[in-house]
């Protein structure tokens, strides 16, 4: 199973849950599983959100693959100068 890790900020919408095991698939699949479990996250994982999959930050992640042992974090999408 893949693991989603929620930051302290997102944990206010997951009733304090820090880690959630999910079926592997695309990031879109993973988000669907996350929202099914924590509906309060609806609209919180939108276009301003990037993800990190196994340490790599990806800004347009929906179609990226999340492997069976991957760790996924939702992060603020950041810009550069």
């Amino acid at each position, binding site marked *: 199973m893949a693991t989603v890790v929620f930051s302290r*900020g997102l944990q*206010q919408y997951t009733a304090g849950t820090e880690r959630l095991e999910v079926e592997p698939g695309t990031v879109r699949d993973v988000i669907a599983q996350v929202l099914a479990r924590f509906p309060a996250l609806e609209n919180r994982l939108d276009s*301003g959100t990037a993800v990190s999959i196994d*340490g790599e930050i990806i*800004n347009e992640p929906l179609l990226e693959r999340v492997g069976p042992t991957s*760790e996924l974090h939702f992060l603020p999408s950041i810009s*550069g*100068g």
Partner: protein
Amino acid sequence: MSEERKFRWIGTRPIRHDGLDKVTGRANFGADFSLPGMLHGRVLRSPHAHARIVSIDTRPALALEGVKAVLVGADLPDIPSQIGSGGEQQVDFRDLSHNVLARDKVLYDGHALAAVAATSPRIAAEALERIVVEYQVLPHVLTVDEAMAPGAPILHEDMFTKGIEPTPSEPSNVAGRVELGHGDPEQGFADADVILEREFTTQTVHQGYIEPHAVVARAGEDGQCMVWCCTQGAFMVRAYCAKLLGLDVSQIKVIPSEIGGGFGGKTTVYLEPLALLLSRKSGRPVKMVMDRGEVFRASGPTSGARVRVKLGAKRDGTFTGADVSLYYDAGAFKGSPVMAGGMTILAPYKIPHVKIECFDVVVNKPKVAAYRAPGAPISAFGGESLIDELADELGMDPIELRMKNAVSEGTKAVYGPKFRRIGFEETLEALRSHPHYSAPLGPNQGRGVAAGFWFNGGMQSSASVNVNEDGTAVVISGCPDIGGSRASLALMAAEELQIPVERIRPVVGDTETVGYNDLTGGSRVTFATGMAVIQAAQDVVAQLRKRAAKIWEVELDGVRWEDGRAICTNGNGETPEPLTIRDLARRAARTGGPIAGTASLTARGIGPSFGAHICDVEVDRETGRVSVVRYTAVQDAGKAIHPSYVEGQMQGGAAQGIGWALNEAYLYDENGRLENPGFLDYRIPVASDLPMIDTVIVEVANPMHPYGVRGVGETPIVPPLAAVANAVRHATGVRFCDLPLSPPRVLEGIEAAR
């Protein structure tokens, strides 16, 4: 990438292809462009920090002979609040439109509220004076503390703080709150032997690019528009103008000029949509150029901020917990770089329990724009200053303390994920072993060290490599060259084609000559666009091998590309002479036509980079003046494609950070008017202010890039603020927590400590 790969061209230092034009003054920058029949546009700007626009009467301006068009906010389409990404940054197009031209309220001194186009700059200036504006002046706020105070004047009545549950019912100047981190900070502090906590402040500072914003725009009768401008992203200008004016992107062609500095400040639009609209109204091309005062008053600086850091550690130096609050001003519209500040503060360190609160606050100052590692230098000033103080408290060497807690591959970052292969430990080791670190100090001198982190960027890039008929090649990218990227891209093409870099001409294309490119920013061009160039050049090599195979009538796998030549390894009978790229280019017509390669990609595998700096200062105890007498910057570049430009980025970042630490600040009067909108009163460091900045390039290859590249442009501005402040601390015995360390402030601190 292959660890064993031996490079022939990568890592060399050829003269940049655009160098001669630049040193002889022939290069064309934004304001150099002109068209026949061109009008001159000027912008009317608010003299008030916060005011309601009761009325604007432009008729007297239009009545002036020579005035051909006048714009006010109502001439721009209304756009709903919509977050989009025209380039690298998130932007709310409604806010962008209201920043380009105010509607019902002006929100800062310098806010644009009308524009004119006339037959001469003098007439345009006179026309501005004839526009009659009635203002209702409102109270204003200039700092995060003023903006968050109870009863503070509200900038946007429709702004309710996001990130707080439930959403507040009253509007606020706090646009959003985000919390990062992991573990239980209270447990972290319970585990600590030593706990330190301090607050720090930094001031609004400008990137200080030498070239002001400039544009020429022409809107044709057929609806097709041309824009010539200095920008970090031609495709960004196209997308933003299209959005703001209700056009298709295909109706706008943007041609970027050479750029005289950007540092993030040219990643948005100010004049471009106005020039286009004035051109559409007047039927003539319109040129607009900001003067220096407008650049300071109305383009985007970076945030002023308040930073609170609490850090706990064991007696042996092991960090146990951290609690951070960051309050960054965004200027007049939401969107400060506070989240990046939160993600980068303490990112170089292993900390089991961390809480980081980030607040994005609007104030009556110009909307901030990106500035080199946006947000990171501000928070690092707090974090790295406190770590220095902790080292003193523990009696530890400050590099040793950092080394003890340094992140490495597999370590969980404070912002969540685990790092892949990174080079922070190697960077600290190089810093510690540098002769500078053990050199003796003179009287009234002190030494400080600090570290910094930046993510670096990937994003979208396209590139083409065209082989000319004589076997030379052209590399076309779509990323304006700010820091020598053309030379680096040419080196990568040379490496793949195996021909001398002098036989390659790198050019920056416009929005119609190359595929889409995100803007130049985020330290991404050498990494991401370089990856596109490598792939495009590999495409060319594949075609060259095919052409040779066709000529020799052999299978493709019997042709090897080596030393700029096709070599037949599987000839039928006698081995033919190798065919050079020149031979193959000459025969292109009979082997399949022109040879050109292209590649477009969303770059994956970004490699973060770490830097660490040593700063020596000398403090004049009579005047409070701080002089930087020696400075060394060390950074992991992954792989330095053109080492001179990596070193240049490190030196430039250090110089800007030193200015931020010692001198720079936006100074406002009691009415919220900027008092120092010029380089005489806003003091950036000049060459005579600084010593030669020594550099050490560490190369811990990014395994996700074919050559091992990480980004380099932003990290070097992260450590200097704290490195300077730590040096001043050791020279004076006084911990300064508020920037800039100007002579009056330093003198006051010294005298208070006596």
